[in-house]
């Protein structure tokens, strides 16, 4: 049986900028930052209270992963805000919202009471969006 998730990928336009966003704005911890040759880097971060879940900040670049123009298509889709990669959790949504806004994080939706719960939506530096909710 499957017991846990240990890696999940977020496709980003620029790894340096993603580092600044996820580490310096969201406050995530760097798990592994390994140079893999010129222009290539393996970069994973973790939410502060989830050190065993590595979020891979995956650069969208031409190569084996994206072939024949697929990288450009993917970059455009990410920029357009096509992808919602997950739901993050915090202890207090109002306080976290105010803090992240103060740090320059862009929100598509402020904390809002929906029929399914209390949530906000924010966007990363590439265009990926996430739901942010409170711990139940």
């Amino acid at each position, binding site marked *: 049986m499957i017991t846990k998730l240990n890696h999940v990928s977020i496709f980003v336009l620029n790894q340096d900028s993603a580092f600044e966003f996820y580490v310096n704005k969201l406050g995530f911890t760097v798990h592994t930052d390994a140079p893999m*040759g010129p222009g290539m880097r393996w970069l994973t971060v973790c939410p502060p209270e989830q050190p065993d879940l590595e979020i891979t900040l995956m650069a969208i670049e031409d190569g084996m992963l994206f072939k024949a123009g697929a990288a450009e298509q993917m970059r455009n889709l990410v920029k357009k805000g096509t992808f919602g990669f997950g739901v993050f959790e915090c202890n207090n949504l109002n*306080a976290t919202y105010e803090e992240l806004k103060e740090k320059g994080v862009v929100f598509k939706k402020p904390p809002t009471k929906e029929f399914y719960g209390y949530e906000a939506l924010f966007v990363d530096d590439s265009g990926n969006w996430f739901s942010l909710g409170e711990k139940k």
Partner: protein
Amino acid sequence: MTNHYPKIYFYKRIVQAKIFMDTHFGEAIDLHNIADEAYFSKFHFIRLFKTVYGNTPHQYLTKVRIEAAKMLLQKQTSMTETCFAVGFDSISSFSGLFKKYTKTTPSTYQQQFKKRQAQIKLNPLQFIPGCFAQQKGWMKKAIFKMFPEETMPTFTT
């Protein structure tokens, strides 16, 4: 919206106090001053801060200092320099609190980080799931032959 305003204002004040600690942890921070800045009495501030963040301001400040110390130790800053740079006023209290929060001493933490960085440099594929390395073309040793040696990861298998 009118009813929402006081709530937002309340959170803004608490968050400002947190951000103040996040950015001034290296200084001798007086919790009385932070409470004043946030326009709360000291005891009211401590209670509200704990409600929002789950820690008292003092506990939170200690955690921020320990995290900042980890960053400096990772850069191979000396323990003494790190201790004072992050706002502790004695090596013994720094060392004790560091161990309490991280379950290791500052010097052991520093050595372990250095060792891990050396391992990443020597064999990065040890830290990358094989499926991703394969997709990226990093499993093929030959790909690195075209790059200058100092930028190349090495492989043990």
